Every structure is written in C-alpha cells, then in structure tokens.
C-alpha cells in the first residue's frame, strides 16, 4: 500500500490476547522467527507504544492493511487459522501488503474468470492502480504467500484464476512460507539491509570458501574439491546436476596417521541474541573411529586469542550418503566455529565432507527424521511410515506418522500425525499430557536457509480433549493406546494420532528441494508451551505521542517520541496526540462499530447512532420541505385568488363605461 504513514516502527509491538488458542500463540512466535531470519522486521511485546497489533481469536483469519495508527489494531486468528503461513500472510497484510493478484499489472499474468466466481463475491478480485499499490519493482509473483489459489471464491469446480503461464496454475496459493519475492518486497518496503537472526550460509562454491581459514596447530588440511575418489562423488548443493560446479570441503582419513587433525575455522561472528543454531550436511564414509568435532573459539577481553570450547562430535556409523546435522550453541562473545577432522585408529577408504552450512541465531530442531528414497513407490508400498521413537526434553515419548493420502493409483497428498507412545518416564510424567506443542516440518533443502520454503504443521496437546470412546485423548499411551511392536521385537503402546491429512500436496512435495536426491528430512520438536497460557503483561497505555506521518521508520530505531506540545494535552479514550501545523490535535480511536469524536475524543459514536441520525435527519428535512411546499402553495393560491378578484372588479368598471 502506498503511503509511508502505513509503515510500522520496528520492532513492531504486539499483544497476544487471552482469547488466542495456545497453539496459535506459539505459532505467532514461530512466525516472528521466520520474519527475523529473513528480514529486518522484528517484533516485541507491547510496552505501551501508541500503536500495536493485538492478535486475538475471532471467527476467521483477518487483518487490516498497514499501520492505521489507531492504537490497538486487531488481527484475528480464529479456528483453523493456527497455521504458520496463514499467520505470516495476515501479518504481511498488517505490515502493508495487499494480495498479490491485486497488483496493478495482474491482468498481464492471470486471467480472472468472472463467470466462475460465486455470485456477489466479484469484489474480492480488485485491482489497485499504481497510485494506490506499489509492486516495488519486483516481478509478478505466482509463488507469493499473498496470492489467492486458483479455486478462490469459485462457483463450481473450474478455476477462478487462470495463470497466463500454465505451469504456475498449481503454484499459486502456496501456504508454506514467504517466497523470495515476498521477502524482496518486504525488505525493500522497510529498507532492510540485513536480517535479525541470520548469520551465514555457505555452499563452498567459491574459492574464498566463505572466508573460512585453515586452522593453525593442526597437521593436515581440509581440501576444497569437486569430488573425492573415495566419495562423495557429488556435493550436496547441486548433487552433480551442474557441470564444473558443486564444491565441498573434504578431509581424507585414507592416508596419514591416527590422531592427525585438520582444523577449518569460520570467519568471526558477533552474536546478538546469545543462542545459535549451526546446521550443515556431512558425508562420513571413513573409519568408525574417525571423528568430526565441532568447537567454538570464543574471544573475550580475558582471552584475546580465543578460548576453544568443545561442543559435540560426530563419530561412528559411517554411511555412503549425505546426512544433516544441527548443533545448538549459546555464545555471547565474538567467536568462530571450528570444524575439526580427526583420523582415528583403523583403516579408512574415505573421510569427512561438509557442505551447505547455515548459521543463524535461532533455535535448532530437536530431531532430524531422515527418510531415504522417499519416492511415490516407496511410500505407497510402505503405507504408514513411523519415525523412530523420540523423547521431548521433558520426557514424553512420541512418534510421528507420515502416510500417503488420496485414492490409490493417483498422485497422493501427504498426511502427518503426531502420536504419544509409551516411554521410560511415563510413571513420573503428568497425564494427560498438557500443552506440549509438536512441530513437524518437512525441510526444503535449498542450500540457503533464507530461500527455503519449508512446510510446517504444529499441534498442541489439550489435556481436556476426549477421544471417541470417552477416554482422554492425551492420556497415558499404555491406557488409551494400542499395543504395537518395534522391528526389534520390543512391545510398546501407541496413543491416537493428531494431525492433518492435508499436510502437503503431491505437486508441492515434488517441487522445490523437498526431496533432494530422493531424500526427505522431517525436522521434529516437542516443546512445553504451558507458559503461554499466562496473560501477556499489560502496560499502562500511552495517550500522547507523535507518529511519524511522512517518514519511513528506521528499522533499527524504536517507536516515536512524545512531542513537547502534546504533553498534558489530554486526549481521552485512547486517543493519540499528533502535531498538525505544529499544533497538538487528537486522533481518536476507531473500530468497525464505533469511534470517538470531539477535540479530545470525549464522545463515543456508534454506527447505530449514525443510522439514527441519518434517518431522523431525513425525516426532519422531509417535514421541513413539506411545510415549505404547503406554505408556498397556500400563498400562491391566496395571491391567485386576489388577482382573480381584482380582475373581476376591473371588468365591471369597464362595462359600466361601455354602457
């Protein structure tokens, strides 16, 4: 939307109302993390700023467009709106975005088939000309999270939006994540030059190896290679699909002596948030005694040359394929990440390779569920696929189920369900399991984390939920579950499943990098979200302020200050004081059904009042007009009579003279 007045100051103040479901609250915070990773848009709990986004549960999912500077600006996340991309979509509205197909140039890219639209819903397909909407010099985006799907508002089964390039017909309407162009527009609109939590991404495609350095004090080196004789034969970035490109770093353990080491140190990082997630792909086909150690070299005033701290090690179980790994860090000072390859005892015909590193100040997923050869045939043959048994940090055992959904012998969609299972801690845990959020994400394996559009669903355990047989749904699996046997013969209980049959469509599953080299990675986490049942602290509302009406707010600066002239001006009823021609005036609070008026916003008016005023004014005007008309008619009649009488007298006189 054109107009700097519609921009929010950064960070954007938000308030999560008590009416919101816990799952939605946790997902809003998750959506904010996606904004932080990919843009400079940050969010902060409302601390009394004059304008803020109030997220609440009404029926439906909706938002205003842009910052309307009306104080509390509502954004609703009703039933079934607790999906991360839905929340991203609604917040994009709030940040100033219309729908993608409302662009001024949309008719160049899509055809709206008006006679397939539900009668009376044609107004949903507006176009805003370039005086009202600005596409920020970004091409039309079929992949935008703000685009309608082809079936939007359809009457029947034929599409209402037909893309001019047929290949995009099933692309429009994605609800996975921001598209690249969504991010480009958002970053342009808010003048972003960096993001909040992203730190680094490295595919080793260039000779500068992303500023990494071969460490000192080692007796071997990492090599920057296109392939290694003993494997891997391809990197992970391109998987051999790009000739003469596809580099990775390799440490060979096939030569040398046990104990030989090679250090690869990252460039310097300056943490802001104090927690980080390091993600990388590795290929480990050496001896099971070889190790890949991760260290941190942290620089402080006391240790200007850096102190090495061991973090974790990858060792044992070599395999002839690329694997994914996450490392959680909590570094607060300037630091480097150090990859240390160590040759172990025993023969080796391989070593370690690393590729596609991503580093961000974010939380890591708890588990990686790697499914190899995740093809149409394999999943159809296997039917339901269950993850290995996993544990939440507080001890609940669970499994995630993935299965095809749809008619046999046709392209299938993917369903996903979360199950509690019996575990080692069941006797000490609280039952039914209360307010644990399970996050299930199919990872888009784009090498750059900022360009990923991963598909995620989250569910939260509700301790009061009842199953069809009257049992509590999230009670102890040994009580409400069914007996199942692991492949190794161990018997356990699996509770009922909770999830969705519409996790991802067949076409989208086979798009992007969800199945890179045929492999799928599900990132799984279970978190205690019970703290979100407490109300967000309410600050004392500020009644006076000076909103920056014409300036684009700086992404790095907080909200506006209160001007002197407004001090003590005394706008009532949450009215906001602004300067107009250097004089303080009140901007009054407005909602859909009522608003305040008056110099100090002292009077409340509702839409019903206006209706009464309109009707009574019309009646009064009609009555007055009627009186005026009747009076005029009477006067004219009287005048006319007088004229007739005068005329009669004159005629009599004339006749008299005649005679």
């Amino acid at each position, binding site marked *: *939307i054109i*107009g700097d007045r519609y921009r929010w100051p950064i960070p954007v103040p938000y308030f999560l109302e008590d009416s919101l479901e816990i799952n939605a609250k946790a997902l809003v915070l998750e959506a904010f993390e996606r904004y932080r990773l990919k843009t400079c848009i940050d969010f902060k709990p409302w601390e009394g700023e004059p304008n803020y986004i109030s997220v609440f549960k009404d*029926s*439906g*999912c*909706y*938002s*205003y*467009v842009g910052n*309307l500077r*009306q104080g509390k600006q*509502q954004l609703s996340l*009703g*039933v*079934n*709106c607790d999906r991360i991309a*839905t929340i991203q*979509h*609604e917040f994009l*509205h709030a940040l100033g975005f*219309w*729908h993608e197909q*409302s662009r001024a140039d949309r008719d160049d890219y899509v055809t709206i088939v008006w006679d397939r639209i539900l009668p009376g*819903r044609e*107004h*949903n397909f*507006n176009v805003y000309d370039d005086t009202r909407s600005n596409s920020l010099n970004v091409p039309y985006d079929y992949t935008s999270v703000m685009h*309608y*799907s082809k079936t*939007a*508002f359809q009457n029947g089964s034929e599409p209402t939006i037909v893309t001019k390039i047929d290949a995009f017909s099933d692309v429009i*309407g994605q*609800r996975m994540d921001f598209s690249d162009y969504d991010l480009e527009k958002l970053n342009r609109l808010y003048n972003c030059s960096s993001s909040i939590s992203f730190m680094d991404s490295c595919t080793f495609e260039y000779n500068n190896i992303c500023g990494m350095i071969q460490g000192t004090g080692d007796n071997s080196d990492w090599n920057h290679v296109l392939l290694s004789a003993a494997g891997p034969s391809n990197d992970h970035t391109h998987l051999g699909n790009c000739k003469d490109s596809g580099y990775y770093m390799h440490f060979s353990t096939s030569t040398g002596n046990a104990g030989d080491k090679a250090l690869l140190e990252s460039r310097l990082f300056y943490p802001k948030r104090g927690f980080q997630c390091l993600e990388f792909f590795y290929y480990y086909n050496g001896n099971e005694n070889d190790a890949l150690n991760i260290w941190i070299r942290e620089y402080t005033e006391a240790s200007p040359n850096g102190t090495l701290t061991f973090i974790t090690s990858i060792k044992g179980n070599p395999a002839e394929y690329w694997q994914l790994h996450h490392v959680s860090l909590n570094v607060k000072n300037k630091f480097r990440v150090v990859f240390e390859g160590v040759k172990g005892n025993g023969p080796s015909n391989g070593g370690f390779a690393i590729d596609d590193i991503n580093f961000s100040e974010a939380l890591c997923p708890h588990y990686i569920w790697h499914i190899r050869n995740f093809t149409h045939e394999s999943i159809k043959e296997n039917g339901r696929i269950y993850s290995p048994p996993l544990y939440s940090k507080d001890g609940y055992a669970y499994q995630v189920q993935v299965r095809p959904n749809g008619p046999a012998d046709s392209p299938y*969609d993917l*369903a996903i*369900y979360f199950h509690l299972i019996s575990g080692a801690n069941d006797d000490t845990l609280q039952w039914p399991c209360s307010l644990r959020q399970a996050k299930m994400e199919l990872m888009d394996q784009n090498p750059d984390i900022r360009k990923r559009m991963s598909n995620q669903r989250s*569910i939260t355990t509700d301790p009061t939920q009842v*199953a*069809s*047989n*009257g*049992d509590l*749904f999230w009670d102890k699996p040994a009580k*409400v*579950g*069914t007996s*199942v046997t692991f492949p190794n013969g161990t018997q356990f209980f*699996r509770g*009922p*499943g*909770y*999830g*969705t*049959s*519409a996790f991802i*469509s067949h076409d989208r599953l086979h798009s992007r990098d969800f199945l890179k080299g045929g492999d799928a990675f599900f990132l799984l986490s279970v978190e205690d979200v019970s703290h979100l049942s407490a109300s967000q602290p309410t600050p004392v509302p500020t009644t006076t302020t000076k909103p920056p009406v014409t300036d684009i707010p700086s992404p790095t600066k907080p909200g506006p200050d209160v001007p002197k002239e407004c001090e003590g001006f005394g706008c009532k009823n949450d009215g906001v004081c602004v300067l107009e021609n250097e004089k303080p005036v009140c901007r009054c609070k*407005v*909602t*859909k059904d009522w608003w305040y008026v008056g110099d100090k916003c002292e009077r409340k008016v509702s839409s019903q009042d206006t209706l009464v005023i309109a009707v009574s004014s019309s009646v009064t005007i009609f009555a007055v007009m009627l009186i005026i008309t009747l009076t005029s008619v009477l006067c004219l009649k009287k005048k006319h009579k007088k004229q007739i009488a005068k005329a009669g007298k004159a005629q009599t006189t004339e006749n008299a003279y005649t005679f």
Partner: protein
Amino acid sequence: VPLQDNTEIDVDGGKKLDIFDINEGAGLDLFEGDIILADTNQRNS
C-alpha cells in the same frame, strides 16, 4: 471400548482449507476475503 490402532483426528477434517475457505465457513464476507478496511483512503467508494 479401546481405541483402534488407526484412531486419528484430522484437524482439517479431510479438507484443504485456505484462509478464504475458513472465513467463508465462518460466515464472514470480508473485503478480499480476509481484509478489514477502516481508513477512508482504503475504503472503496
């Protein structure tokens, strides 16, 4: 009555619900499906 092994609750009820389907289902007829207009500059004449 014990639960069946395949007892599952589908939060989407077997449908692919987009924002606009949810709002239609809730009986809302919002501007462009999920937008509230408040400002005179935004309101359609």
